[in-house]
């Protein structure tokens, strides 16, 4: 029996940012009773086990991201879906760190996560939570690359009315005809390439006439995260992003609109 959900906190892309995750877990219960993680617990931040342990202790249901699958299955790379060697070079650095520092027990846990979670809304809306897209765990759904008919096709193929994804790291939402709805919840692991140090999560709201989502900024102790990253000898471009809010790596995958909005 699927769970009925009217409001839910949705977040993704933890990327080992255990400090943002702590802040989220403190804040989320004031927003909604249901909390879901859309995957990628690991990536460029420090101490991967801390984030996995926090999520396990809190009992938050997690959708498997490409990182979780790769780490869990002991794969050689993150399967992030990058196609450019400049993007992949940095992706490989953070993957090697996360893989080395994740306990065997937590790897087994990540391997067993579901690749999607289905819920029901108060009016019977079919809700699907997944990581990249319903058809591919590492597909990037960018706002500027997602026309309405394409999104409608993804929803139709997946048999859902409301779709929530992450993977790209930049939040956006779209109302489609017929009361259907798509939200990319962004990431709590790194800022959204907007020059701000806070990160973002979403509250899905099915209590109104039409589905909607609110994006909430989540401040956390980013200076402490930067210090921890340096202590772990994580490369400086990753730390710069935490300190400035601008992406410094994995930029080639960005469509022109999203690329133009950032500093690099």
């Amino acid at each position, binding site marked *: 029996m699927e769970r009925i959900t009217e409001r839910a906190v949705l977040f993704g892309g933890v990327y080992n940012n255990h400090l943002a995750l702590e802040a989220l877990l403190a804040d989320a219960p004031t927003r909604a009773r249901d909390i879901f993680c859309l995957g990628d617990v690991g990536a460029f931040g420090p101490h991967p086990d801390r984030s996995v342990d926090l999520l396990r202790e809190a009992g938050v249901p997690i959708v498997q991201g490409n990182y979780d699958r790769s780490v869990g299955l002991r794969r050689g790379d993150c399967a992030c879906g990058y196609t*450019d060697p400049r993007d992949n070079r940095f992706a490989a650095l953070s993957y090697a760190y996360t893989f080395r520092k994740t306990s065997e027990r937590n790897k087994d846990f990540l391997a067993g996560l579901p690749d999607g979670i289905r819920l029901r809304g108060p009016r019977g809306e079919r809700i699907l939570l997944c990581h990249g897209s319903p058809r591919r765990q590492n597909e990037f759904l960018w706002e500027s690359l997602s026309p309405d008919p394409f999104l409608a096709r*993804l929803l139709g193929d997946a048999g859902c009315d409301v779709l929530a994804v992450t993977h790209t790291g930049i939040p956006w939402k779209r109302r489609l005809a017929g009361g259907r709805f798509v939200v990319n919840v962004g990431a709590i692991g790194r800022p959204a390439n907007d020059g701000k140090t806070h990160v973002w999560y979403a509250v899905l709201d099915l209590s109104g006439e039409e589905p909607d989502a609110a994006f909430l900024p989540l401040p956390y102790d980013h200076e402490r995260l930067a210090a921890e990253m340096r202590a772990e000898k994580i490369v400086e471009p990753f730390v710069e992003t935490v300190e400035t809010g601008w992406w410094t790596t994995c930029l080639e*995958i960005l469509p022109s609109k999203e690329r*133009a909005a950032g500093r690099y």
Partner: protein
Amino acid sequence: MNSPGRPFTGLDSLWIQAAGLACNLRCAHCFNRSAPGNRDLPFLSRREVRGLLDEASAAGARDIVLTGGEPFLHPEMAEIVGDSLSMFPTTVLTNGTLLSGRLVSRLAAAAAGSRYSLEIRISLDAPSEEENDAIRGKGSFRSALAGAARLEEAGLLPIVTAVRFGEDDSAETLEAFENLLRSKGFRKPRVKFLPVFRIGREEERSGGYGEPERVTQEMLDLVGASLLLCSGARLVTADGVWACPILMNEPGARMGNVLAESFRPFPIAHGACTTCLRHGAVCANAAIAVREE
């Protein structure tokens, strides 16, 4: 010989060869033999392209790629780009030599007015004038760079796209391209590589694909279906619908007269398919298609 195939997973990208095979350049490696005065393939009118956009929309496509020939030889290309951007993320593949200030302003206005990204890929085949012009023709280097610089100034972030012939170190060449663009004031240089396809004019230059290079199931298993254009894209020309843009002169790759009848598996059977399989994601905007061996 039985050819292995991959299922057609639905139309993600519709390629539209609106400008036929007309081009103001005659590049030595051109896979579809575009050239000045080539009238083998008529242009598609703006109205015909609009019809295709509607079909793509009905099929739930993700993006449109406008190609040729040289798209900006089409007298209505700026309008076509605008039409496409009003419905889809849109990519234009151009040699960059016809990008006047006025045209760039119109493209920038269309991009700014759209919710979707406009990607303009400009072909340059070497980071030096001498090497580039030996392949693409005299004056093409300066003219394409000037066009790219106008786009960059207008905030359109062109993707410089280079065909690599495989004999050089791609990381070094990538750096040389980035340095070239930075020296011209590009703040966000974007560079993409394509492998050379040994068909069209290149076949005469370097010899075509021999029988041993045909596709096997084993090769197919090495690359994800999502990285193969033919599993989620089609090319429409004035002469019909094709499995992919590279194979538009190959009778075996013609999938029908209209888009709807082309939504079926393509039996991957051409020598050029091996290039795609080896490199993967060849046509994606973000792909550097030359893999380190």
